[in-house]
């Protein structure tokens, strides 16, 4: 996926108002199967995969023993419910190899098989309020309108020259309604062209980053990494200690009990054109400091915005060290945008 096709802000606006197309085939897919699959997934990830019925998915985290985050990912219950559970896990492209290495060693067992299936899948994301109307004419074998958010299903896609098997999930990284289509790499060019011809606008990495910052979704290496625990990142809602033990559980619970010392917040410079960047230093009147994790120009709000870590209970007024100056900014709650 290039950084942009026509223009980052223009592409982002089109996703918010119509429909955009993202080639996210670089992401990794790990398949875990066997009688021990569920228990392996439960041991490695923070969310409760036992709650997943066939056709459902959940956002989850994989952490180290010290509670630091190794990756954020989506777990799909991939089997049809007639035999033992099988899961497909979509991981960040940049973490694919380390994740698979960790999963297959820390999650190993006689009754569980881990497979890096990334090369078997291409992934195309169609995102925006017009997604369903645009996609529906090409899809058969399923009730697309009835597919709930975070549900997924097998289906057939009528591409230009052939019908192809696809797996459609109502998931995405933009904050809009939309779908992610799993298909074979061979089928993906036709599916892409079919959807682009139907009016979906190709969008690149730049727009993807703008949209996810507006929706305030974390990006690994920015808001989350091995130095952050889920509670600091505002992701306590995907941590389910009641389900039983998992890697990092004790460490993150004890961090929560001692008190979370920094939190993820929004930062909005007073100068609408002052785009904060990752690692921009934030200072407060009392001398405490924070730092920016991501920043962009928001086409929805028409001003520069950023996400940042600040000490718990920071005041609203802050200064950003930018352009060799201290620029005033406000610390705000997240998200910036909700559909």
């Amino acid at each position, binding site marked *: 996926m290039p*950084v942009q096709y026509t223009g*980052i*802000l223009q592409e982002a606006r089109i996703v918010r108002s119509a429909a955009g197309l993202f080639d996210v085939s670089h992401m990794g897919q790990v398949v875990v199967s066997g009688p021990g699959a569920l228990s392996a997934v439960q041991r490695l990830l923070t969310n409760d995969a036992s709650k997943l019925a066939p056709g459902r998915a959940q956002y989850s985290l994989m952490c180290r023993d010290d509670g630091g985050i190794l990756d954020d990912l989506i777990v799909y219950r991939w089997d049809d419910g007639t035999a033992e559970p099988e899961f497909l896990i979509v991981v960040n492209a940049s973490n694919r190899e380390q994740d698979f290495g960790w999963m297959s060693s820390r999650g190993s067992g006689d009754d569980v098989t881990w497979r890096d299936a990334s090369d078997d899948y291409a992934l195309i994301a169609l995102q925006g309020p017009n997604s369903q109307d645009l996609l529906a004419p090409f899809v058969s074998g399923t009730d697309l309108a009835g597919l709930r958010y975070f549900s997924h299903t097998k289906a057939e896609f009528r591409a230009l020259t052939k019908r192809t098997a696809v797996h459609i999930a109502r998931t995405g990284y933009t904050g809009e309604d939309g779908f992610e289509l799993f298909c074979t790499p061979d089928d993906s060019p036709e599916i892409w062209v079919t959807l682009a011809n139907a009016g979906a606008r190709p969008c690149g990495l*730049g727009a993807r980053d*703008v949209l996810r910052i507006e929706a305030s979704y974390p990006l690994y290496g920015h808001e989350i990494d091995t130095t952050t625990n889920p509670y600091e990142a505002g992701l306590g809602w995907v941590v389910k200690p009641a389900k039983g033990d998992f890697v990092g559980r004790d460490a993150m619970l004890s961090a929560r009990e001692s008190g979370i010392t920094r939190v993820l917040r929004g930062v909005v410079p007073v100068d609408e*054109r002052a*785009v904060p*960047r990752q690692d921009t230093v934030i200072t407060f009147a009392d001398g405490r400091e924070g730092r920016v994790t991501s920043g962009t120009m928001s086409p929805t709000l028409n001003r520069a915005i950023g996400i940042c870590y600040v000490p718990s209970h920071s005041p609203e007024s802050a200064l950003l060290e930018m352009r060799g100056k201290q620029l005033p900014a406000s610390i705000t709650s997240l998200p910036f945008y909700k559909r």
Partner: protein
Amino acid sequence: MDIPGNLKYSQTHEWVLDNGDGTVTIGITDYAQAELGDITYLELPDLGRELTYDDPFGTVESVKAASELIAPVTGVITELNQPVLDDPEVINGDPYGSWMLKVRLSNPSELENLLTASDYAEFTEA
């Protein structure tokens, strides 16, 4: 990639128009605006300040990154394009029409350091 023949170019993607009266007009090229993406902010020195050949003199920021402007000539700033300073995103759509500043040359022979349009075309193709 648009590269007008009547301009000279620096290797850091500024264009220079010789106004024929000892001053030049300076902007950034089509190549530069495409690399930068959506421009969000432009910072230039004040009128009367001096540019020194090959030194940074300002910043252009885009959604993606902040980039330094490098002086293609030495001289004193005689004019700033305030509408472009106020709305720098116009540079993306019209890089050669959106001049940034005018400079009175201290050393007109420095123009020989710059590339012709065809040299710049080769340079950007590499």
